[in-house]
């Protein structure tokens, strides 16, 4: 039965990693605008000419 405790600890650790990643993403504004990036990826990348 003790194996379940190990499983639980592992699963919480993994989930906590995801949670931290998610919180970082939402705090850094990645969820602020979910429509424009979908359009932006359609544009050709230009070579770094000037800015």
């Amino acid at each position, binding site marked *: 039965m003790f194996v*379940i405790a190990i499983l*639980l600890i592992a699963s919480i650790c993994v*989930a906590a990693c995801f949670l931290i990643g*998610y919180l970082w993403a*939402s705090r850094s504004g990645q969820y*602020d*605008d979910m*429509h424009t990036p979908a359009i932006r990826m359609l544009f050709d990348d230009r070579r770094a000419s000037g800015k």
Partner: protein
Amino acid sequence: MRTQRGAEDQYLILDDKKVQQEQVSFASPTRNRVTWTIPSLHCASCVWLLEQLHRLDGGVLSSTVDIMRKSLTVDYDPQATTLRKIAEALASIGYAPLIRLEGESRSPSSTRGLYTRIGLAGFAAVNTMLIAFAQYLAGPEGVDVVLRNTFNIVAAVLSVPVLLYSASPWFTAAWASLRQRRINLDVPVAIGILALFIRSSVDIIGGRGEGYLDSFNALVFLLLIGRLFQQKAFDALSFDRSYRSFFPLSVRVFRDDEAEIIPIEQVRRGDFLIIRNGEVIPCDSTLESEAAYIDYSFVTGESSPVESLRGQVLHAGGKVIGNAVTLIARKEVAHSELAEMWDRTWKRAHRKTFLTVSDTFGRWFTLLAMAVAVGGAMLWLPDWEMAFNVFTAVLIIACPCALTLSAPITLGSAMGKLGGLGIYLKNVGTLLELYRVNAVFFDKTGTLTEATHHLEYYGKDLTAEQLIAVRAIAAQSTHPVSRSIADGYSDTNATGVLEFIGTGIAGSAFGHHVLLGSRDFVVDRVTGAERVLGKHGVTHVAIDGHYVGCFALKSSLRSGIAEMVRELFRSGKQSQVVSGDGSIDAPVLAPIFGEDLLNFNCRPEDKIQKIETAQAQGDTILMVGDGLNDAGAMGTADVAIAVTEDTATLVPACDVIIRSNAVKGIAALLDYAKRVKQVIVACFIISIVYNILGLGLAVMGLLSPLMAAILMPVSSLTVIGVSVAGARMSIKHLQRKIEETTACS
């Protein structure tokens, strides 16, 4: 664009230090940040163009578009460029920014907090569920006591942040409504959440079981998802525009013999204002110049310009056409008629919307749930433990979470879908009001017909020589109608030209004597006037002393109108036209509506009266209009739709703004509102069935954690599924109607 502001120096005000401070959200010596709304932003190429801004202005470090909010954030180097230069660069490529001065700035609604709440709740929900599963599936011998206690403590630790942070919006909302001595649907939700948590803590501490923490976390998670839908719908709206958005920021005034540019708020009575071609008059003023042509299409929706003479009053919102004019301000900007009319119409009477309905429902629901909880507990009374269990179980199961989810999710996804079709709702309740509509009143110009006119000649056929003579004489006048008759003709072959300001022009060219002007002007000077064509002609023509015909504005019907109106009639909705214009378009509209349902020459008061009469007969009225001349009628009607040619036009108070190409979808929109209502009703029934089922179990004391863990998320998920699917599937018809001929320009 209709709202183009002609002045090249209208952004001069952005050089002002104080204004700059207000505009810039982040400032450092090398990098400043400003965010502006760009009303004309609408498609992928707009995004591309605006994000290439650094090519137009070297001082721009980066520019980022948010297409849903129609905003542009520009980072720039204050040493290399200025706010004014950026604004001018934007205006020069057709994306004039909408600049708000102090007190008008829009607080950026951030969804970040909501996302954090959802993340936390989701994390806790999944892990508590995992813990609970171990116990549900442990079999008859159960889980080892030490392990079980550890599990429960871990679950409780995971749940505390959910209670304190993720669920806090419902506690604040419930508390706020209780303090106003009102009970809305937030109250039973908050009670349910709290009951879940307290009951679970008591069970865990007393060692009686694992509690309902998995249900608790899943519930908060789902409720937050519902809130996210709502938030998304609100984000897509930009209803917070006032007449000020359409006015210039600054105006040129003469003070102490010196021309200076001041913000329009600083205009005082008696100031001399200079307004040039294409500029908007900021406040009610008296005309000081000889004559002026004013386009009031902003205010009235009518695009034919009005001629004014010295000493006449010009109203705020008119656009000057032709030569620059001098005006004397009569009132300050905020006290002008337009500003006051705007304020009046936007303060619409609070009507019974869905939200108040759900408040009433919430009150009864809460009282009923409390009664059942107390009653159920009494039944078990000598057994205090069982009584407490039943009491909390009833409160838990009575939590109307599925109910609170159904309306926001259905309406939220409907609003999002509609926004994509060019139909913008003011709030979620509007769809439910549209559903009740059974009579539709249409304004004509700009609503059923295109807002722009072109001149058409009616009368005797003219020879080529006569025609060129008419054009040559017309070319001598600065009147906008003459200009369009002249149609680009600019040679000066005319002789003996006499212009009578405000009435007409006379002269000779190519061997013909031509008279052009108002009806009276022409009729008084010619023979054969008994055949004068309808009084609606804008400009009448006589050649060599004989009346020949007139030039009149001709408007054309928008596409798909006839079919849309037929569809309205088929579904039993009365439709009629209330127009301020003369009956010149009657032949076009009669086959569609029938003679009886066309009302021409209506003044704004007549429109209001017609609507009130229909309302007295018990009809629910939808008014579709476009200009401020419809504002009164739209305020009186139960629901109002404003039609706008481009999203930057001034629209009167309304519940829905639709793009002009979506007018043909109005019948389908009403139909859609009906379907949405049906979806919500279906969800109501589903959630009530679940609640009754659960209540039965709760009162009998059979609501085990496992039952709750299945019943509550399943009911919420069914409702979410039905809501989203319902709102999306039933929009197909409307989508087809609107997209038939529409493409992104």
